[in-house]
């Protein structure tokens, strides 16, 4: 069998980049936005007669831009498996043994043959993972009731920061269910850091004995499943991402934890979150009941309680606003860390997203 040499290629070299992009376009891959290309750590390729016949890239824990020419000398799947071995070994050398891949449904089998497992699929694409720590390991860290129970609610929040609105939503779920899982987004992209957000949620629901606060990990609204939550995307990308995120939640998380309902706040302010809520309703019902809870109004004429309004008030140092929107526990944290929070904003942390 002929073995091809796999080389690392430099996409900063314009002619290399052009050949690479032309090859991928011929394979049906079209998205070369900077937001996709900038995170690439490494790109490898195989050449035959000075033309690319196969390539693949790594961006963090995601394997991207994998393509192999249909008619190669040594066979399509052989070359594919060689490229994937090389990419996985690159990551292993750095001590990373877990990888995700987004691909078209027609390539699902190719990835499953080399050990990938499907996390979620929709008609535009599928998300798979391989290695450890995987979703099974993630789920094993979440506490479960000792005896099976009927009504298990779920709430997913970024809590940036934890407000009276979040508290109200969780209270509603807590009152009508035996157990409530509150998943806090793990993505480090917010004014309040992940450990701070989780601590504030825990402090804010301490008195509710049937509430368990859980880190959402890579699997619930992250850069991986739903990047548009954090960065601007067009509506068709949002449609695809929300399908993946919601189906992963439904079939891989809720089914394992026995979750029977999900509580969300009505969303008058964010276009993306509103589309997400619609997707939750259309995908989860009737197996998982979606409760859309009317957003709470703040005292005075401030409108609905919104973490974004709180962040804007922090930016301006306007204590009167956040005092009306967040519980005491969050107030304490903001007062004690106001300068630090304002500094994060000055250093470029965006506060107008989610």
């Amino acid at each position, binding site marked *: 069998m002929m073995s091809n040499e796999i080389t690392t290629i430099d996409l900063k070299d314009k002619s290399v980049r052009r050949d690479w992009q032309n090859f991928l376009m011929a394979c049906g891959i079209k998205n070369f936005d900077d937001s996709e290309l900038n995170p690439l750590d490494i790109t490898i390729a195989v050449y035959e007669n000075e033309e690319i016949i196969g390539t693949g890239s790594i961006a963090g824990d995601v394997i991207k831009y994998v393509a192999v020419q249909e008619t190669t000398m040594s066979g399509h799947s052989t070359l594919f*498996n060689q490229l994937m071995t090389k990419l996985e070994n690159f990551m292993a050398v750095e001590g990373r043994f877990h990888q995700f891949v987004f691909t078209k449904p027609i390539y699902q089998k190719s990835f499953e043959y080399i050990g990938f497992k499907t996390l979620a699929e929709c008609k535009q694409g599928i998300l798979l993972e391989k290695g450890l720590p995987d979703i099974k390991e993630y789920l094993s860290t979440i506490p479960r009731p000792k005896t099976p129970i009927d009504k298990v609610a779920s709430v997913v929040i970024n809590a940036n920061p934890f407000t009276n609105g979040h508290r109200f939503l969780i209270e509603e779920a807590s009152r009508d269910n035996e157990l409530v899982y509150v998943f806090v987004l793990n993505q480090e992209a917010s004014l309040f850091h992940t450990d701070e957000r989780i601590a504030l949620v825990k402090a804010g629901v301490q008195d509710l004995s049937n509430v368990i606060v859980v880190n959402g990990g890579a699997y619930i609204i992250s850069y991986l499943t739903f990047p548009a939550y954090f960065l601007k995307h067009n509506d068709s990308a949002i449609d695809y991402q929300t399908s993946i995120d919601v189906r992963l939640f439904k079939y891989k998380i809720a089914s394992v934890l026995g979750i029977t309902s999900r509580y969300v706040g009505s969303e008058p302010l964010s276009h993306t979150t509103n589309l997400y809520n619609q997707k939750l309703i259309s995908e989860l019902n009737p197996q998982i009941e979606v409760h859309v809870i009317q957003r709470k109004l703040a005292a005075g004429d401030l409108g609905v309680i919104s973490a974004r309004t709180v962040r804007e008030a922090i930016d301006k140092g306007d204590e009167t606003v956040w005092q009306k929107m967040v519980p005491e526990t969050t107030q304490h944290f903001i007062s004690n860390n106001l300068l630090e929070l304002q500094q994060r904003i000055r250093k470029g942390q965006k506060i107008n997203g989610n």
Partner: protein
Amino acid sequence: MEIKKTAIAGTLESSDVQIMLSKGTVGVEFDLVSDVAKQFADDIKLTIKETLGLYGIENAVVKVVDKGALDMVIKARTLTAIQRALDAVDQPNWEVL
């Protein structure tokens, strides 16, 4: 012996096998992908288990992607994965080899 860190050995190419070892708590847990799983899954697992046994490893999570590897290849790849997982690549266990 206890596995110190996750390690991988082997390739995804034809006639080879890729083996990933990591810490376990409840015996040797397998996750095996192979075109010949129906006929040979038990044999593949036995070979790996015996090789782990040579090092006294009783708890491990083993992920296997088999591409039709022969027994001796499976053993060789498992040994390499073990040496890496024990952080002992420089001190091969000659008695086992």
